[in-house]
């Protein structure tokens, strides 16, 4: 299992039973080369799109109900329709800044099958009349950058990108751009700021979303890597075929990364809606159960920003709506499993520390609040907590996200689920996300926190 050698490509993908839409080429070690891509149906979706009018391509994507895979789960076809008509030029920005803790899928797609992503970008550009595409790859992913650069060089050479693509009147440049280490840049307006060469701080929205005023003030579509990687398959097979997988409101498949205390952690392509968390954790086709057959204590269903779920929620389907109603989110398909041995305070501290480190500092409640959350949790964990610290922690959390914070039901205690999303006093959801681990852990495991706070009734005085 373990390997001392440098891993040449992304490991972790498990080729299990089931439909394969975006990961079909992952079984080939050379899937990143144009030759392999063309031999396995690469760029057929683009060719088919080019025989249609752009608006027809847009219609197919809208009909397929392709939900955004970045976290918010908004239908791509509808997002595309928000561009104001007649305002040119328009841009495509591809969000490849994957850094949500627990998330591991876009890196696979970029390292293993960059041509599929490029083809997806081209289909989007064709459908909407976008003049230029920027592929924003996370700075730390050196291999993904190299593979995409190589793929783009091959594609330019083969006349698949650039001027008069495949001899038609369709011309678009795809430019590789890379970040430099900032989680917040995954937020779409911060991504645009970063692409303009600025500090990656989110812009205030509404009223203006990137589709209206984005890169250089022009209409801009920001889509996730996985969202775009679905487009070639949808073009070749059609919207009806796509809707045969998954459920009615969440069709198709998704890449789920299941990490933590399971027997076979990995990235799995699974149907949305029809698969449940139980299938993923315990199913033979997926993770094959808990590590050491221990009891499940809690799990994060959609990346560090998602409120935690507990054993009662394992039968929920992998679908945005029911998960949202149950008090969390499916987010970026990142599921972190924690068994009985996990220290809830420690896990909570680690996730909060992440948000404190990654806060961009634009909004006061987040900049100051996340730092205080970390300070308080740190001293509680270190055994220096003071009486009233837990109340102060919740008070700070309430300043970032006022009102009852979303969370799972706890039937035993008569606690009802509070549906997603949370309220926020900040521009972007980073600050409110830092509250998710705190309220989740405190509601459920308050005794663990209290046990760490020293309880003294009097100051001990030594006798001699």
């Amino acid at each position, binding site marked *: 299992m373990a390997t001392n050698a440098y*891993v040449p490509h992304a490991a972790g993908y498990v080729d299990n039973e089931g439909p394969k839409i975006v990961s079909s080429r992952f079984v080939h070690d050379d899937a990143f080369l144009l030759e392999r891509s063309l031999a396995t149906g690469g760029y057929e979706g683009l060719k088919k799109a080019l025989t249609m009018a752009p*608006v027809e391509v847009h219609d197919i994507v809208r009909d397929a109900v392709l939900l955004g895979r970045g976290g918010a789960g908004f239908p791509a076809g509808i997002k595309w329709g928000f561009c104001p008509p007649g305002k040119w030029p328009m841009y495509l920005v591809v969000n490849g800044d994957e850094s949500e803790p627990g998330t591991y899928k876009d890196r696979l797609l970029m390292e293993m099958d960059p041509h599929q992503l490029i083809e997806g970008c081209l289909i989007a550009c064709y459908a909407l009349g976008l003049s230029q595409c920027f592929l924003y790859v996370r700075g*730390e992913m050196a291999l993904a950058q190299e593979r995409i650069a190589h793929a783009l060089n091959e594609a330019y050479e083969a006349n698949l990108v650039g001027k008069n693509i495949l001899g038609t009147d369709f011309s678009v440049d795809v430019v*590789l751009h890379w970040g430099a280490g900032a989680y917040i840049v995954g937020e779409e307006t911060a991504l645009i700021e970063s692409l303009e060469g600025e500090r990656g701080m989110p812009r205030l929205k509404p009223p203006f979303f990137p589709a209206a005023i984005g890169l*250089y003030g022009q209409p801009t579509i920001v889509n996730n890597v996985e969202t775009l990687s679905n487009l070639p398959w949808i073009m070749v097979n059609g919207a009806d075929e796509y809707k045969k997988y998954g459920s009615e409101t969440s069709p198709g498949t998704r890449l789920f990364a299941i990490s933590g205390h399971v027997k076979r952690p*990995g990235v799995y392509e699974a149907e949305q809606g029809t698969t449940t968390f139980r299938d993923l954790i315990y199913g033979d086709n997926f993770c094959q159960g808990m590590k050491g057959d221990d009891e499940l204590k809690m799990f994060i269903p959609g990346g560090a920003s998602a409120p935690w779920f507990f054993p009662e929620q394992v039968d929920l389907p992998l679908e945005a709506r029911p998960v949202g109603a149950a008090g969390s989110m499916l987010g970026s398909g990142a599921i972190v499993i924690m068994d009985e041995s996990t220290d809830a305070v420690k896990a909570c501290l680690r996730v909060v520390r992440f948000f404190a480190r990654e806060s*961009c500092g634009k909004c006061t409640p987040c900049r100051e609040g996340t730092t205080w959350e970390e300070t308080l949790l740190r001293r509680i964990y270190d055994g220096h907590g003071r009486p009233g610290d837990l109340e102060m922690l919740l008070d700070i959390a309430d300043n970032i996200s006022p009102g009852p914070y979303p969370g799972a039901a706890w039937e035993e205690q008569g606690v009802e689920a509070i549906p997603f999303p949370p309220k926020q006093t900040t521009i972007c959801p980073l600050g409110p996300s830092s509250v998710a681990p705190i309220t989740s852990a405190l509601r459920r495991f308050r005794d663990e926190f209290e046990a760490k706070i020293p309880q003294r009734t009097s100051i001990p005085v030594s006798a001699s």
Partner: protein
Amino acid sequence: MARFTPDNLELAHEIISRYPRKKSAVIPLLHLGQEQDGYVTNEAMEHIAELTEVTAAEVIGTCTFYEMFKTHPVGKYVINVCTNISCQLNGGEELLEHLEETLDIRSGGTTADGMFTIEDYECLAACTEAPCMQVNYRYFHRISNDEVDGVLSDIRSGKLADTIPEHGVLQRVRQTIPAGKLAGIAPPETVVDAPVWMARNEPILAARAAAKAAEEAAAANKATEATEANEKGDA
């Protein structure tokens, strides 16, 4: 060593030419500066400011926001150990402690010989392969303490020189767009019209508009007929 070398200057111009506005090239150029010197020097930032026609203050403003840019010399090999949630559950913190003890530095520090810098890093997107670490942004998955020792000695002996370049080098393969293949990059204010292929929509949109108009006309007719029928009925 500070401003871009002639080769890198040529590369810098090529990178700038791919963006509709020059300032967009600031981050890629900061990477180029870091690649040249191992860290981003003040002189490199001044040069970038000249090339992208912004002030040096704006360049340093952007530079200091991003974790990967080092404004002081760091080790030849920067080791990022992920200690975020998935790695923490599978021994990421122990891995970091082991490295700190082995190299006798705390995270954030550099060894006296300038070989290694250790960083306590956030999620590296290899969560299922925990614990994981990167050496100069090249991955090591599911790595044990013993294996880390092996990696360190392999780096020292130069065995991994082919797979792990020195700090600063991110892309050994770069994007190059042959001149004749470029679709054309223009500042946004110079683009007024829709891209040519969007004209393909016209017949379809016209047909759809006609169909809609016909439908509306039919509906209007029906409504008139119904009113007439009602009126007749009333009479």
